């Protein structure tokens, strides 16, 4: 029969691998951020599952809330950079972002 811990950790591994693959394989900056989002979902699920199995669910909730706050701030700044890059370079292709002056 299925076990909560096993099934949840399989989901965590799948989410993390999908996110990582998307971040590596994608050329579009928005798609790279979608990969990051998928990875973060895996991490949040891992925290909550670990807390549920150990009986420390309140502690894991506190950590999950911290992860979600960091995630949304990162996404907000990254999307602002994406919009400005789109305005200046007229493209979201990461391969075209190699000739910046700095």
């Amino acid at each position, binding site marked *: *029969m*299925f*076990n909560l*811990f096993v*099934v949840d*950790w*399989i989901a965590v*591994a*799948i*989410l993390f*691998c*999908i*996110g990582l*693959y*998307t971040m590596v*394989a*994608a050329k*579009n900056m*928005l*798609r790279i*951020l*979608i990969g990051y*989002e*998928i990875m973060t*979902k895996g991490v*949040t*699920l891992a925290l*909550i*599952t670990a807390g549920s199995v*150990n*009986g420390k*669910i*309140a*502690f894991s*909730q*506190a*950590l*999950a*809330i*911290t992860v*979600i*706050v*960091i*995630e*949304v*701030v*990162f*996404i*907000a*700044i990254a*999307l*602002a*950079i*994406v*919009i*400005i890059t*789109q*305005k*200046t370079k007229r493209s*979201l292709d990461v391969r075209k972002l190699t000739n910046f002056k700095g």
Partner: protein
Amino acid sequence: MELHLLILIGLLVVPAILAAFAMDLLRAAMALLVSSLGLALIMFNLGAPLAGSFELSVGAGLITVLFVNAISLTRLISEEERLERAKDHYQRFAILPLLAIALGVLMYLRQDFWATGLSFVKHTETQTVGEILWQSRGLDLIGQIVIIMVGVYGVAILFRRGKQDNV
């Protein structure tokens, strides 16, 4: 284990695969929204309602709004360019569903290898989430406030620079 938790995990994983696989970015953002919804429901199911409601409001709500906003501000591409990109995209991401299924099946079949050695001590918690955040993890809270302020300042600076560059 109950069937409904399996369905919820499906609701989390399948839209996540679709979000990575979809060519259309708006569809990918919507799939991400459904995936966040699945994660929030799993959190409620595992006894984490605060994190679940936070994920629902921030992960499913705010982040989707930010993504849709960013997508709406990007340039439209021509039909020929879209077809060319779609071919390249599906070639690169065709492996993704297979990778997810293979990983899931492999991990399920070899769970004796990675899951049996792990032992868990069932703790009894005395503190609530609020007490943990304000007392034992108070530093995290200060970090969160600093990160939010840095985020707001960063976005404001970036958009101001973007406006100056446009003028």
